[in-house]
Structure formats: structure tokens, C-alpha cells
């Protein structure tokens, strides 16, 4: 990947706060989506945002990408508050968009260009990179993700896995310092999902700050060093090292990330918390 863009913001090193989310609440009309959520993200961290459907993960990511703004509380990125007003500033907006990339859950929403090549070039072009550099980056990204054979195809005609790869490529070509991934593996076949997980790990190893919203605990285990759990009450239910959070069955059960599952052992039916986090063998009686 090309070097980080350092335009319009303080240079950040490992350990500095990239995001400071303080007492953030948000509601859609009458329905609450986030309630008093507070946390910090340090540069280079790999964070999983865990939560059941409707817990507010996507809302939080959109807020961290300055696409929506909190009803109360504040989100600061690179030391600057994200607000409609600060994003009106061309310099800040340009720098922020160069530094933060967002892969949407719905690839169809993210793909709108006439060809895969142009889709990937969209970000670098609109972030005012030199045409020569745009071409270089697009070519490199196409190569990394193995999309050579799709270059001239219209993106809305691809399979879900291909669409997801193109969506990711369109963000990677910007080479952002921070990657926000919304349910990156949802609806993908195991091979593509595995590929995306490995790529995410590599990006984190390359120094990117990666924030993954997911309910796929196996993915979280693979890619994240830290995990934050959003409860069904839209509040932070847990925050800590991924291994500790993912080992806390009580917490995961209360956040609806794992579920009770009837098992019969030797003819006796009983329930115990169940997830597919660890390898889980079922006997023949199931």
C-alpha cells in the first residue's frame, strides 16, 4: 500500500487516539439506536464491534465515517470533532475522507460506477490524487484482490463475493489509515469470507486501524485484538481484549450473540449456551 496521507491533520503514531467517542446517543425518529456510548480507539488497533441485529453497530460506524452525526455526545477523529460544520470545511473533509475508508454492508449501495475499474478509481479521483497515481493505485488494488478478469464488467452484475471484493478494493485504493468494515463476511461463501478475514489481518499487521462491526464471533476472534459489545439496549455491554470478551459467555448471551440450543446427550435433553466460536462437535444423536 502507498504511504499514509497526512494532509490536514496531525501525524498520528501508534498509541494516539484516532477516535474519541464520548457519551454518544442517536435515535431514528422514535427508535433509539445508540445510548450513551463512550470509547476510544488508538492508532493501529484492531477492534471488533460486536452486537446483535439492531444493536446500533452500523449506526456507530456511519457516525465514525461522519455520514451521520450524534443526537448528543461527540465523536472526535484525529483530535477534531466530527460535525456537519467541520465536514463543511473542504480541507478537513478531504483529509478525513482520505484517512478513513468505509466498506458498507450492502455492496449494492457501494457500487455505482459503470465498470469495476472506474469503481475502484472513484475514491482516489474524488480525493484529488494525480491521474498517474490514480491509475497506479487502481492497477495495484486490482492485482491484490485478483480482480483482473472483472476490470471492465459493470459492478452490479457480479456475484455477491465479487461485489464485496470490488467494494473493498474501492476503499483500499484510497489507502486509508482507518478501515471501517460493516459485516464484511455477511452472506459470503466460506472461501471468500476466509480470504477477507486474512486480508483484514494483513491490513492490521501493516499498521492500519481496523474497526469491524460484526456478529460473526469467529471473524472477530480471527481479526480483532479488542472487542466492544453493544447490548440490545444500545449501550456498551463490554469492552476489553478480544480474547477476554469472547470468552465471557454470560456477556455474549446477554447481548444475544450466542444462544441457548437444545442438546440431547444420551437421551437427556438439556440447554447450554452455544456459539460457533470454537470447534464444536455434534455426536451422531443430533
Amino acid at each position, binding site marked *: 500500500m502507498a504511504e499514509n496521507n497526512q494532509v490536514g491533520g496531525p501525524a498520528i503514531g501508534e498509541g494516539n487516539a484516532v477516535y474519541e467517542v464520548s457519551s454518544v446517543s442517536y435515535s431514528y425518529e422514535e427508535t433509539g439506536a445508540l445510548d450513551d456510548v463512550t470509547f476510544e480507539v488508538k492508532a493501529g488497533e484492531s477492534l471488533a464491534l460486536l452486537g446483535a441485529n439492531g444493536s446500533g453497530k452500523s449506526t456507530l460506524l456511519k457516525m465514525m465515517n461522519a455520514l451521520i452525526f450524534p443526537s448528543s455526545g461527540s465523536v472526535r477523529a484525529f483530535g477534531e470533532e466530527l460535525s456537519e460544520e467541520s465536514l463543511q470545511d473542504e480541507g478537513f473533509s478531504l483529509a478525513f475522507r482520505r484517512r478513513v475508508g468505509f466498506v458498507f454492508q450492502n455492496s*449494492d449501495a457501494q457500487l455505482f460506477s459503470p465498470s469495476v475499474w472506474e469503481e475502484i478509481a472513484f475514491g482516489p479521483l*474524488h480525493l484529488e490524487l494525480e491521474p498517474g497515481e490514480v491509475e497506479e493505485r487502481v492497477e495495484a488494488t486490482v492485482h491484490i484482490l485478483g480482480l483482473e478478469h472483472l476490470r471492465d464488467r459493470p459492478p452490479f452484475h457480479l456475484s455477491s463475493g465479487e461485489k464485496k471484493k470490488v467494494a473493498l478494493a474501492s476503499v483500499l485504493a484510497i489507502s486509508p489509515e482507518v478501515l471501517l468494515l460493516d459485516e464484511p463476511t455477511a452472506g459470503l461463501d466460506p472461501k471468500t469470507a476466509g480470504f477477507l478475514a486474512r486480508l483484514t489481518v494483513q491490513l492490521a499487521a501493516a499498521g492500519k486501524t481496523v474497526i469491524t462491526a460484526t456478529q460473526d464471533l469467529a471473524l472477530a476472534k480471527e481479526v480483532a485484538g479488542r472487542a466492544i459489545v453493544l447490548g440490545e439496549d444500545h449501550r456498551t455491554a463490554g469492552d476489553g481484549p478480544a480474547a477476554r470478551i469472547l470468552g465471557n459467555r454470560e456477556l455474549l448471551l446477554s447481548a444475544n450473540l450466542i444462544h441457548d440450543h*437444545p442438546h440431547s446427550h444420551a437421551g437427556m435433553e438439556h440447554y447450554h449456551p452455544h456459539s460457533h466460536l470454537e470447534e464444536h462437535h455434534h455426536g451422531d444423536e443430533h
Partner: protein
Amino acid sequence: MAEAGLSIPEWMRKKPIDAGVSRNGRRRRTSVVERTISGLSEALRSSIFSERIAARPGLLQRIDPRIKILGFLTLLIAIGLIHSPFILLGLYAGTVLLAAMSRISPGYFVKRVWLFIPLFTGVIVLPSLFNIIRPGDPLVTLWDFGRDVHLGPWLLGDSLAVTRQGATGAVIFVLRVAASVSLAVLLTLSTRWPDLLKALRVFHVPRVFVLIISMTYRYIFLLLGLATDMFTARRSRLAGVSTPREDRRFVTGSMGALLGKSQALGEEVYAAMVSRGYSGEPRTLNRFSLAGRDLVFAACVAILAVAVIGGDRIIG
């Protein structure tokens, strides 16, 4: 595997009443809904086809979009000023020739243009053919009333006839529309959409206007995709024949649902564009640069425009 509190009801366990998959030879009627599905996918296909045409290495595709827009605008004005049907016919033939030189199949091009014309010009042209609307020398008399007919205070005359003046006017009008529509179709077929938008910005078309058309274009695709999904989903649940009444209810119901869905998705598309740096200014990689052929094209257009207007004055 049954979960606590969730049990499958008895009726769901039963086999379908008629689980056979044998044919009974009766054909289902194709309904409005099914025809809509094929119409929708046709629209998607043709838009992809248009993008491919714009990417072909033809004559017009190689011309700078700015020059193309200026040139075609000049020709449009010229067409508006010309009264000779022969010159108009010549210009129309010229557009077909240009299409062929731009690797657009003339058959496809002619069909695409003439599909529009009856719809847009028929209503206007038809009444003006007759002496009741536009008095003149009768060419074909359709009905001889034998005496002057009055409709209230309005004198209709003693016959219903197609007049020479009416017919000439209609021919000129239709040719003018055909040539103009041909130029517009040529421009959109030979220019890639983002380039066209970018060229509009060069002519200082307001940014908000360009933004609106670019978003409209995206939304048309979203709408097409969503509508195809909804109609296909309905067809998959439909066993027998639905009555036209049911179809109509479905169509009206789905219009509302479609609007809601496409708005939600549309907002997300916009968010995705903003997220990657879009601020209302469409950017494409092809930097416009004027080459010799652009100047030759511009000169040809200018000479042609002067020649046809001059020729029209001489004939007229």
C-alpha cells in the same frame, strides 16, 4: 432441530396438496407483472449495451465530449431554422451515416430513434393535417359534407380533407424531430455518462443541476433492480393465474413499497459516494485534451451548419 418455544405447526409439516410436477398442457397467460419483469430486465440490458457502445473505438467516441456537445448544439439550432424537407432528410441521413461510422448498428440506431417519434409527434402533428385545423388546398378529401357544417359558432367547412400545407408541415416537423432526436441519441450513445456530465460542468451548467441528473441516473438503476426483485419474488410465490384485478392491486401496492425502498437505498448510495470523497463534482480519469481531429470535427460541423442554413435560404 426444534428450538425452545418454537414449534413447527402441523400444516407446515404436511406435503403440498398436489406435489406432482407433471405438466397438464395448459398455458398460463403472461400477466402484466411478468411483462413488467421482462421490460425491466430489458431496460437494464440496454443500458449496459449503451455503455459498451460508448466504449467502442468509433468516430464520435474519439471526439472530445466538449466539442461534441458544442457541435451537436450548433446542428440542433440549424435544424430548427431549416424549412426544406430535402435538407432535413439529408441531415437525418447524415446522422445515420455518423452512427455507422461510430460503430453503432444503423438498424439499432434507426429503431431507437423512430420508437420515440410516433409518441411525441403524433399527437401534435395529426390534427394539423386536416383542413378543419389548418385551412389550405385539399390534397385528399376524406368526407364531403355537401354543405357548410357548423359546430356551434365554429365553421368547419364543407368537407374533411388533408391539406397540402398540413402534410408538408407535418413532414417537416417529423423530420426535424427525427434529426434532432437522432443527434441526441448519437451524443448519449457515443459518450460515456461520466464524461457527458463532466463536459456539462465545463460549460458552467450549475453543479447542483449536474448532481441532480447524476443521482437520477443512479436511482434509475436502483429502482430497476429493486422492482425486478419485487416482481420476481411475487412470481416465485404465484402458482395459478392471477386476475388482472389482482395484478393491478399488486402494482399499485408495490409502487409505494418501491418508493420507500429506493429512497432508503438511494440515501445509502449517496452516503457511500460521500464516504469516498464525492462532493458534487463528478470526476473521471479521461482528461479532456483537444486533438487535431476535434478541431477538424468542429470545422466540419461549422461548415455544415452554414451550408445547410444557406442552402435552405436559397431553396426556400
